[in-house]
């Protein structure tokens, strides 16, 4: 037992940091030792005592192995296990854990934490662990996809927010990638040890999983009514790069429909498909998304009858099938709200009675029945902070009116500075990501091939422009791009 303990605390050696290579070798040796120890018969019985003698932040690797043994043994009290897991996940040394990818994955998935603890606890634990491993949150792993899916299905969206609010820019698995840096390099970006081929930290992911992940993120945000974030997440799905020229993924189609509805809630008008949308999906959206697009256009046009006609023209069965009924209900509810909101561009003050006659309910396509209903609606909007203004009841007994606050659209100097600095900071933070991308690409065979090709072409062009007498420069290109006949006639 004592010798085991000695082995466990042997790495990292206290006080001696060593250079990267030394650290690398030591870490690898330690993992080997740990693997050997954990296969020992006595190991499981000693684990509960051993763990008390380890500090999760200094001896993270050892702690991880012991903890995994405890967890899989099923005999350790759950409350204690939760304490230990929390301690570990909030404080482990990510540099050490880079070497323990397999064990880390096991800790999360064998058995799954979701099966051991209540849903919200499990979600929070995993989210903490993933962020501790990769504070930038820029690398997608199979843990992410599983987690978000589970969180959405069990309705525990809140604890997963820190994870889904991050922008994913790296995906595991890259063709022809050879790691040129040691895992121990303190400057190694998270993508350098998570998103590599040996799949220690993640199972391989396919396109479907990635699309589904962003769709689920969108759905989580929809549940939270964070329309902007939901809109961005769904936009990632619908603009997913595609080499397909005639087709799209079902998931993308699904996301497109929701994206339009969320766009209406967010902006009050039909969103415009981003220019980066690929050709194939764009074609498909045109046909499959027709009912939604027509609805969005009617929403903009402000003839309540047309709007009502659009959504009523589609049967209940259609909406049931589409599973967008809750969203649709919100859109209908927001129809009148957006009309009132648009009045702020025209009026500074407007009586509630005028609002009543000038706006129509999306549900009945008629003005609301009484000023009281309008007042309730407007007050609701003010409470939700959609609308900046106040309802005034004049003392002289005149009709009640809504006064839009005039400074609502203008930023204060401080607010502007704060947001500008924020944006600048976020752009600066992209620096390491750009460097990491560059590094990853630099060792990619395909990319190098492409670079070489590019260079050769440049050289060839330089030569032909120099005046090769017998050759027509770019002749092949011309014929390929244009109508054959005109090309030849003109030539």
């Amino acid at each position, binding site marked *: 037992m004592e010798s085991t303990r000695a082995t466990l605390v042997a790495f990292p050696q206290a006080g001696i940091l060593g250079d990267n290579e030394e650290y690398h070798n030591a870490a690898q040796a330690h993992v080997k030792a740990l693997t050997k120890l954990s296969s020992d018969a006595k190991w499981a019985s000693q684990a509960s005592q051993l763990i008390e003698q380890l500090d999760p932040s200094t001896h993270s690797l050892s702690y991880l192995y012991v903890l995994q043994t405890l967890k899989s043994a099923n005999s350790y009290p759950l409350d204690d296990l939760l304490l230990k897991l929390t301690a570990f996940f909030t404080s482990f040394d990510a540099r050490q854990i880079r070497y323990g990818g397999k064990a880390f994955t096991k800790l999360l998935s064998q058995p799954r934490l979701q099966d051991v603890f209540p849903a919200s606890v499990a979600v929070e634990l995993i989210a903490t662990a993933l962020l501790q491993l990769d504070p930038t949150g820029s690398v997608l792993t199979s843990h992410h996809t599983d987690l978000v899916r589970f969180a959405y299905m069990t*309705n525990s969206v809140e604890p997963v927010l820190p994870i889904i609010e991050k922008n994913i*820019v*790296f*995906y*595991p*698995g*890259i*063709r022809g990638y050879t790691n040129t840096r040691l895992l121990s390099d303190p400057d190694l970006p998270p993508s350098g040890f998570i*998103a590599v081929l040996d799949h220690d930290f993640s199972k391989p992911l*396919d*396109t*479907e999983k*990635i*699309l*589904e992940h962003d769709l689920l993120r969108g*759905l989580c945000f929809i*549940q*939270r009514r*964070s329309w902007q974030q939901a809109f961005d997440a769904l936009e990632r799905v619908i*603009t*997913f*790069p*595609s*080499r*397909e020229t*005639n*087709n*799209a*993924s*079902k998931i*993308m189609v699904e996301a497109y429909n929701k994206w339009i509805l969320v766009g209406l809630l967010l902006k009050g008008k039909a969103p415009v498909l981003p220019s980066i949308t*690929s050709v194939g999906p764009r074609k*498909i959206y045109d046909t499959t998304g027709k009912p939604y697009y027509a609805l969005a256009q009617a929403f903009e046009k402000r003839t309540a009858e047309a709007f009502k006609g659009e959504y009523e023209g589609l049967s209940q069965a259609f909406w049931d099938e589409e*599973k*967008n009924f*809750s*969203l649709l209900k919100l859109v209908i509810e927001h129809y009148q709200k957006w009309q009132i909101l*648009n009045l702020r*561009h*025209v009026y*500074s*003050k*407007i*009586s509630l009675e*005028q609002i009543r006659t000038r706006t129509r309910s999306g549900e009945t396509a008629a003005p609301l029945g009484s000023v009281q209903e309008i007042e309730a609606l407007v007050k609701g909007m003010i409470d939700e902070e959609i609308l900046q203004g106040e309802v005034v009841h004049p003392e002289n007994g*005149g009709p009640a*009116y809504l006064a839009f606050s005039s400074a609502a659209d*203008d*930023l204060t100097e401080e607010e*502007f500075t704060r947001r*500008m600095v924020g*944006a*600048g900071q976020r*752009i600066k933070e*992209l620096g390491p*990501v750009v460097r990491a*991308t560059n590094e990853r*690409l630099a060792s*990619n065979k*395909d990319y190098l091939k492409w670079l070489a090709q590019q260079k050769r072409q440049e050289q060839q062009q330089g030569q032909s422009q120099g005046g090769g007498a017998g050759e027509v420069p770019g002749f092949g290109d011309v014929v390929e791009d244009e109508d054959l006949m005109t090309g030849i006639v003109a030539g």
Partner: protein
Amino acid sequence: MADPLLEFFTQMDDQGGIVVKDAPKFDLDLLIQNYRGRTKFDRLLLIGRSSVKLCVEALKVALAEAKRGRDIQRYREVVEYLRIAAPDDPDAVYDKKWLEKQELANREETQRLLAELKGYKNNLIKESIRMGNEDLAKHYEAIGDLNAASEHYSKMRPDVSTAKHLVDVGKHLVRVAIQRREWNMLFPHLAKMSLNGQYPEEERSSQPFIKAATGIAFLGQDKYHEAALAFLEADPTVPAKAYSDIISRNDIAVYGGLLALATMDRRELQAMVLENQSFRMFLEPEPHIRRAVTMFVNGRYSSCIEILEGYRSDYLLDIYLQKHVSRIYAKIRSKCIVQYLIPFSCVSLETLEKAFGSPESSIEDELAVMIEEGVLEARIDGIERLVHTVRVDPRAQMQASALASAENYEKQAVERLRRMAIAAADLELTPIKKQGLHHQLGGDLAYADQEIVMG
């Protein structure tokens, strides 16, 4: 008599035509004297089809005009109209004898000219070929075959030898294109008429024709500002005969004045219309246009609108203006309101109602529409019944655009990085052979329709 007329205008209305009920201020005979050539008939027919008061009179003059010409299709058309509008009129019957005679004569003339042209071509004399083409094209134009006319006018171009010839070809082609309403085609024709300052005499005499045609072309494409500039530049010293086959002097004044009013601010109007010595000569026979512009420049907007409203039905009977009158008037009206509001930070709705009010719609609704469309920067105070004008704050604008571009930059950068990563990991959506969409949704996953909670 009322009944057939009513029926006639119901038909015109159904066909999407504009029907003008009020009597115009002009005299038909005097008006039509300003023009020559085929445009005379076109204008008469338009007045006949649109004006309730002048219908029969205009159609009868048109009929006489058609009979003086050689275009039998026109004759048929106007008789057809007349038969509906005034069935009892002695003119409302086909002159079969004339028709047959004219048709035969036209055919023979075509054959004769074609044979002549063939002869010229065999002789290889350029000038003869040019003239042969010109004669043939003029004949085609006279009998209403505009397509063939345009073709043969174009064939004159290779054989031109003097500057005058070149200008003539251009004029012919422009005239035909205007008759065919091909506004796009006008620009290349007009561009080829420019002589680059080498022949000042020819250039001077064709200047108003080119300017007027340019203006008409821009007007046809709804580019009012460009059209106004073209009309304002026309040279008044050239006799009207040089362009009366497309437009009259009075028309240039009206078009130029109205379009300038619709698109220019007060300073521009002062400098480019009222102080424009050459355009003043055009304005002389149309003093009310000058008055309207003066009123606008002097800030008497309601008088300006009043004057123009008085001439609305005249302009609705103009061949080129008809379609645009309501839009031009609306533009002038909203400009008047905007200009009216400029010196004030706050105006009561009553004052505005007095100045611009019309019985049809309340000024408040009109203002609301203008603000929504972005024509007017103002906010209505529906309680105090006031209109506050909004001053644009350039600092706030700059800040907003700076923020937007920073945020956009960030978003794009992330998106690009992500796309590179997807491409590098070979995760793009790739084509599949089988039918149907990719990736059916997982069966256990009920995407959405969960209750949406409060955030």
